[in-house]
């Protein structure tokens, strides 16, 4: 494997690599475009990974944690609590439903109103904490049943605002993946154009090679290896610049919000390193198809 790789990299120096004349400008253009595409790919990858993390975090933090709030006249409150608990017990997807004690409610409210809150004198609603099962419950159905059994009960279901956000994050992630595919497509197109230009410019060279017994495989190989190397070289440069740029982005974690900065976390830093490999594969395939078709057309 190592030997193949080495012979591949030494190809520029070898006799069979030199049968195609060097073409300065096109070569540089291929390297530069490939570098630019790899740079963009790093950002697209960072975007889809960041939104992926975001979606996962929202999913985990908010999935379990709905509450039922009950406000009712003092003479009805206990019956309504009992009714609501009974409804919750028989709701599929609810793992546990528990009435918060007065102390717990005080703890919850303390950060907002201070320790000297005269709880007894305030008409505070009763709170039932719901632990969801991973698959979740049917919020609409539960809301309807609660309305029937305990008119003073209101379901605070975080999914009401969580779901659109999750959907947005997932859509963003999809856009990131789509961008990656587009970048790969543009790279393939660009390499195809450059390879076709090189093939057309070297018609006489190809004819001479044919006359001395070169197979299509040999001729195509000379072009394929050249463009694969250029694509790889450009992508390595672009990826490194892209990774440095992402690493230097200011972190948004300090804000303490749900926002996580655009970037890679821990092991995710390995992923951008696959971009040059993929770029080389794209260049290889694109040049191979272009060369095979062109050589067939040239008699």
């Amino acid at each position: 494997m190592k030997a193949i790789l080495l012979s591949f990299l030494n190809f520029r120096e070898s006799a069979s690599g030199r049968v195609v004349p060097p073409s300065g400008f096109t070569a540089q253009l291929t390297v530069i475009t490939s570098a630019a595409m790899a740079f963009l790919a790093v950002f697209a990858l960072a975007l889809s990974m960041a939104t992926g993390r975001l979606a996962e975090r929202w999913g985990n933090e908010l999935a379990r944690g709905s509450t039922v709030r009950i406000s009712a006249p003092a003479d009805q409150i206990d019956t309504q609590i009992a009714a609501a608990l009974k409804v919750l017990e028989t709701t599929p997807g609810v793992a546990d439903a528990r009435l918060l004690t007065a102390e717990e409610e005080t703890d919850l409210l303390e950060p907002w109103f201070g320790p000297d809150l005269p709880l007894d004198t305030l008409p505070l609603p009763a709170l039932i904490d719901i632990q969801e099962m991973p698959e979740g419950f049917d919020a609409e159905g539960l809301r309807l049943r609660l309305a029937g059994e305990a008119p003073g009960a209101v379901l605070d279901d975080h999914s009401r605002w969580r779901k659109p956000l999750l959907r947005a994050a997932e859509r963003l992630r999809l856009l990131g993946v789509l961008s990656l595919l587009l970048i790969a497509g543009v790279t393939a197109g660009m390499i195809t154009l450059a390879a076709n230009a090189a093939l057309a410019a070297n018609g006489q060279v190809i004819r001479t090679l044919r006359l001395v017994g070169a197979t299509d495989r040999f001729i195509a190989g000379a072009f394929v290896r050249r463009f694969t190397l250029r694509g790889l070289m450009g992508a390595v440069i672009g990826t490194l610049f892209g990774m440095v740029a992402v690493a230097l982005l200011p972190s948004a974690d300090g804000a303490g919000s749900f926002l996580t900065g655009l970037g890679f976390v821990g092991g995710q830093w390995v992923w951008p390193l696959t971009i040059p490999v993929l770029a080389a594969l794209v260049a290889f395939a694109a040049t191979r198809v272009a060369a095979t078709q062109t050589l067939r057309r040239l008699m």
Partner: protein
Amino acid sequence: MIEFYDAGYGYGGRELLTEMSLTLAPGSFHFLTGPSGAGKTTFLKLCYRELQATAGRVSIFGEDTRSMGRDEVALLRRRIGVVHQDCQFLDHLSVAENVALPLTVSGLPRDHGDLSDLLAWVGLSEQIHARPPELSGGERQRAALARAVIMSPDVILADEPTGNVDWEMSLRLLQLLIELNRMGKTVVIATHDLHLIRQAKAQVAARVLRISNRRIQQSGADL
């Protein structure tokens, strides 16, 4: 070795060569003559399947050229050395690399000893590192001959190898081709230089193929 069966070649509705039936036997030495534009180059191209007969059929090494695949043609070219009328070198490579090109495309090792022997044989030892555009007409023809024989082919086709060189050099190139024929190679030389043909006939049993009136006529003895 190479057989024509009532073969013809035409383009755009016009027949250039017709009704050719002949055999180029192994070890034979042929001259191909005819006025400019008669179709000498075309005939040679039919012999190495650069062109395909548009009528009849041509067989090379016992194989019908019509049924050959692209790779088979490439392999065929390795057994036929061609000295092209316009030489066709890769100008970005040195003379030595150009001469060794058939080895390179065949994936064979370039034996340096053999290569310098070959270049010495055609008198190009000094020009090993030169680029083709720096060579004189005669040097180009000799480099082309060296490239044509480096694979030790069974057949050597030379298209006006003495076209743009002086008499001295013509004799030298002829001598090289006669040497190759004595080694058992089949040689075909396209030329309209009658002096050259006479010179050769003194040394080898050369036959003359003359293209006239779109047909090939074989004449063994006189000119």
